[in-house]
């Protein structure tokens, strides 16, 4: 099977072709090793970084932005969103503070400082 992909690793957006033979994926069209790895991941275990917000309970109308520390399986995006939505935090928050532990093998961390 052949799949045409657009690399999402960097803004260049290379057009990739992945030829899938059983467990083997042969990639062409990439201009860097990250692109090759992206195509292999996309055909075997597609992953995405999820970014969202968490409410800061002790500050009026304040949200802290957050992300998954590492990419999570693509089909778990909405499960991760449900976990993030049910989370709250108290200020002060620093960048890198863990907001949710153990989310599909990674963690959700703060990406903004709230004093």
């Amino acid at each position, binding site marked *: 099977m052949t799949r045409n992909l657009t690399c999402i690793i960097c803004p260049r*957006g290379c057009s990739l072709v992945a030829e899938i033979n059983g467990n083997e994926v042969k990639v062409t069209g990439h201009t860097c090793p990250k692109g090759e790895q992206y195509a292999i991941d996309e055909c075997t275990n597609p992953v995405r970084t999820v970014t969202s917000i968490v409410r800061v309970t002790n500050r009026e109308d304040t949200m802290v932005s957050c992300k998954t520390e590492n990419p999570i399986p693509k089909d778990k995006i909405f499960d991760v969103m449900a976990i993030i939505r049910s989370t709250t935090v108290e200020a002060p928050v620093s960048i890198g503070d863990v907001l949710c532990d153990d989310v599909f093998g990674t963690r959700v961390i703060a990406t*903004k400082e709230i004093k």
Partner: protein
Amino acid sequence: MINHDIVIIGGGPAGMAAAIAAYDAGIKDTVILDREDSIGGILRQCIHNGFGLHKLGRELTGPEYADVFAKQVYERGIKVYTETMVTDLTADKVVTATNREGILKIQAKAVILAMGCRERSRGALNICGSRPAGIFSAGTAQKLVNCEGYAVGKRVVILGSGDIGLIMARRMSFEGAKVEAVCEIMPYSGGLTRNIVQCLEDYNIPLYLSTTVAEIHGKQRLEGVTIAQVGPDRRPIEETKRYIPCDTLLLSVGLIPENELTRTAGIPIDPVTNGALVDENRQTAIPGIFACGNVLQVHDLVDYVSDEAEIAGNGAAAYLKGELDKKATVSTKAGYGVRYVLPQTVSALSDKPVSLFLRVANPYGKVRFTVKSGDQVLATAVRLKAVPGEMEKINIPAEKLALASGEITVSLEEL
């Protein structure tokens, strides 16, 4: 009247990087004026990732990217006036601003314009119909969702396929909304291809090209929109009209550099970029006034904003040190297939290489760019594809630049 060496108007990514560069080049009395309560600009609401790959070699979210630069500003002790709105700028570099303490008048030796841009609004589009609640510019919706925690709507149509619109399509999906469609009046998207893949295709959101919103329906709250395909004249085709029920319409239909102060100071503006005309140091036609970032040209990537701001910061510092002599300048010109070239003038006597930034006029496949002055070829560059949504950069080595005898033209040929 207060005196400062360099006054930077705007504390977004451009203002921060310009301040750091000017300070590091030896001008310690550099200050930033920003109307918000903290620096960081639009990055503070861009919570998605993808920033910093070029500039910092790692992938960050917007707030994280802003924090890297804000920390450097504060580490250097660069003075920041927050909640300070600049209301006037004169050609002799008097900056007038207002804040809680009253009216501030600053005599600057050099000024760096870094005011960024704002979004085109519904009023600029003349869409027929009523004026219900539920119509937002994509960036306004982004701020409401990401900074203030509001859910702006449940059923969404997005007009315009610029990057902010695409990013918001995904963001609204994350928050449980159904994005019915993204409509783009042009036959191609204005956003980065990667954003079409990771923001639309991942969530099965349809992108309709050569399609616009023809009518808006609803009295109190938006109830739906009529979309239609457009002809080559970009006007809706009656037979293709169809109704989509929705409670929210997001507009991502272009950005306008915020150049009111630039015009007040009498600085000439490029009618294509809508930013000031500048030389390779990002100096405007008024010596000592510089411009960088989205107020100069709308960028795709913040990494390139930071690069451009460093050029302006170093330029302003060199100006104050008397190192910017007016040298033999030649103008640059957009040739076949190129919409604009920036900077609009360069010094042929520059001892440093110069990068030209440009956008193509239409989507192309494989192309070769040629930079020529008279019969001299100064540089060539081949790209596998070139699209209007992605800015191109072509470097001219200093020794080639010295060969420029007159106007420098950049044109492309399809391969």
